[in-house]
């Protein structure tokens, strides 16, 4: 009987989600890309092209049945490299948000609930960090520490938590005076219970939607960084690097730029559509 309830609820959510065709597209795109990327060595036609590889007989081939997206200046298959390029994007998004979201959520909860000097400290810190564009920060850190994937990710995570701290802080400040929170306080519930059981679940939908949106954002940013030549080192494929390299051969060898750019767009659109669907289902106003 409980299971039936659960299924009914799921069906209800799915109904609301599927009302918007774009969100289904977003879900399919995102899931497909994640799966294909994990299975990249098995599903790409030329997995060896992802690393150091040259084939001077096949340079600058336009798209064909053998090379769907054409080949680059050293004869590597752009389709294969685009799929491998997603790895960099997804790892980046996963790591940055994996660190930033929990950190930001906890700090936001603490600052919003306790108030006082803790709140001032954390909120002033977010003010400072938010005054810097994330890209500028990543550039600065990479410049100092050397353009290494790990460093760049740490740099981004160190800025990104502030958005979540802000979001959660704002929600906690309005929720902590809700009567159900006060009721729990009167009953003598612990602060941990109130923060994590009473307040956090009410913030969760907004956090989830924002995380989905930000995944797209981090991917965009990572593409931007690799476009500038930061983050990942050649020959490791990154979509941004491929776009930048291809841009040197415009307009004649347009496929070198256009396909990696489209690859970025497809993933970013997919995630945004997914976020839109979640927003409808979870009734979040973000």
């Amino acid at each position, binding site marked *: 009987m409980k299971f039936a309830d659960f299924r009914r609820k799921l069906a209800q959510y799915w109904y609301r989600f599927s009302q918007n065709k774009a969100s289904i597209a977003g879900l399919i795109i995102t899931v497909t890309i994640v799966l294909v990327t994990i299975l990249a060595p098995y599903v790409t036609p030329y997995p060896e092209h992802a690393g150091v590889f040259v084939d001077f007989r096949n340079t600058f081939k336009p798209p064909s049945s053998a090379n769907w997206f054409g080949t680059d200046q050293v004869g590597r298959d752009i389709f294969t490299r685009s799929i491998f390029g997603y790895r960099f994007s997804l790892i980046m998004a996963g790591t940055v948000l994996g660190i930033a979201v929990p950190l930001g959520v906890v700090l936001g909860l603490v600052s919003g609930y306790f108030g006082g000097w803790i709140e001032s400290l954390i909120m002033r810190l977010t003010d400072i960090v938010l*005054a810097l564009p994330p890209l500028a920060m990543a*550039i600065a850190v990479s*410049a100092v520490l050397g353009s290494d994937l790990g460093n760049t990710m740490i740099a981004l995570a160190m800025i990104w938590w502030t958005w979540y701290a802000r979001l959660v802080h704002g929600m906690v400040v309005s929720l902590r005076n809700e009567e159900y929170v006060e009721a729990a306080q009167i009953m003598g519930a612990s602060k941990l219970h109130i923060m994590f059981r009473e307040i956090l679940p009410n913030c969760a939908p907004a956090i989830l939607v924002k995380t989905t949106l930000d995944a797209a954002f981090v991917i965009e940013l990572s593409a931007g960084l690799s476009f*500038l030549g*930061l983050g990942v080192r050649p020959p490791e494929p990154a979509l941004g690097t491929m776009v930048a390299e291809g841009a040197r051969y415009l307009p004649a060898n347009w496929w070198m730029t256009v396909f990696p750019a489209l690859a970025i767009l497809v993933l970013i659109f997919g995630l*945004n559509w997914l976020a839109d669907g979640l927003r409808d289902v979870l009734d979040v106003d973000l």
Partner: protein
Amino acid sequence: MQYILFLLRRAAHSILVLLGLSIIIFIISRVMPGDPARMALGPYATQEQVAALRQEMGLDLPLWTQYVRYMSNLVQGQFGKSLISERDVRLDLAHHLPATLELIMMTMFWVVVIGIPLGALSAVKKDTAFDNLTRGFSFTAVVIPGFLVGIGFQLLFGYWLDWFPITGRLSPGTVVTQKITGLYLIDALILRDWHLFFDALKHILLPSLALSMAGIGQVIRITRSSMLEIETQDHVQVVRSYGVPNLLVTFKYILKPAFIPTLNILGLLSASLLGNAFLVESVFSWPGVAKYGVNAMLQKDINGLVGVVLLIGLGFLLANLIVDMIIGLLDPRIRLKGEAE
């Protein structure tokens, strides 16, 4: 009086943020692993050369002394010498600033003149084909990364249609007879040099539009949604119920309060706009501060980078201060009470 107090408080807050920013940058540039002197000179420099530079940069002093020196230099606007151009970073920045300023101003212009009317119209014509189209456009504009828009524009309008030049601020033949502000469009207007004006306009059009797309999308979205929200509020129903003409209700009683959230977004937006400028300036080889910053970064020029980052932070804070000023003018609660309700 309350308004001035409010602005002073915001300004004081900005100064604090700037101070914090400088500390963070100091920590990043001095405390994190790696030797700035070694980085600047590269792996082939001798030990003595490195030591000499360390001394020159004050890296051998205790950390807090370094900090005091760094801060007192910053307060005087001294960022030190660029390790690449060998010039005072201040001069370098001053040289590159007008290009960026011109780009940003042009971008803001597009954001305001395209974003706000489209958002307002979209709200008025809610659920019509126009509204759906506008919403689709704003979604797309927000989602597509600025540098890809830039490359797309280059391909379409530059290479294929050949309507606009794709790099630089001016065509090779065009000369600026007299530098006044450094903003070519404005200089040309002052000098009544129409050739210069149109050449500069042709060059700035694509980069500024590429840079403004995300902002336009955001502003459409927020203008539309805040107008629709205010539309349902009692006070709008009241003026409507008394038969005040629809156009007046929309463009006075709804639009003015709807401006407040829009402006707030514009202020916050300026950070991501400045960030995107790094990429867009790279794409269009626009000789601005961001391009200078990217070069500094690629060449490990710490002093140059510190200058660029602080300048950007300052830009963001100034933009927000201006936003606060305008919001204060729009919202009597801020103007007369010093805070919103």
